[in-house]
């Protein structure tokens, strides 16, 4: 599964996308990211699944695009 990174998160990881073995839920994804990419562990972000903000217990089954959304600052 491809995980998109933006802004401050892309900078701390040094990449705009990560490849991970597809986890079952959003919460599982965060656990996996924290162990595989320690730079993400202290970061604040929401997870978007197929361009919609997702809850921790949301299933990733069938998800096509997952993104980590650091605190936004548009406007």
């Amino acid at each position, binding site marked *: 599964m491809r995980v998109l990174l933006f802004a401050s998160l892309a900078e701390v990881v040094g990449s705009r996308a990560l490849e991970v073995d597809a986890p079952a839920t959003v919460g599982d994804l965060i656990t996996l990211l924290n162990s595989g990419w320690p730079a993400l562990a202290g970061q604040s972000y929401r997870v978007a699944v197929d*361009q919609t903000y997702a809850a921790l217990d949301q299933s990733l089954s069938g998800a096509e695009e997952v993104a980590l959304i650091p605190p936004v600052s*548009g406007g």
Partner: protein
Amino acid sequence: MIDVVDVAISVDDVLAAVEGPGEGAAVLFVGRVRDATAGSAVTHLDYECYREMALTEMAALAGEAVANHGAAAVSIVHRVGRLEIGDAAVAIAVSSAHRAEAYAASRWIIDTLKERVPIWKKEWHADGGVWASDHP
């Protein structure tokens, strides 16, 4: 009109997109690049976005403004890339039958855009850049 652009925003076009014969009021909000943040001089800004989701969220804001906040028509355009002091970063036009709803919906849209739409701003100072959300 819902768009994310990498060139100067035409505020005339944003406003024209909400014209209608029953709309007696139109409010245009323009967010511009300021030359300082929290007392520190800013030289320019870089905006980046998650384009597909930003467009989805902006369209949702427009829909909610019509459904729940009394707007008749809504137009939102955000600019990304490098912006200089004074450049328009976002333009929001709202029309409604009367002014109270247009003012209220305009305010709700910019406040909510700043909470939900995946766009990020890096502020450049003389000693380097800082993401706006990383301010203490």
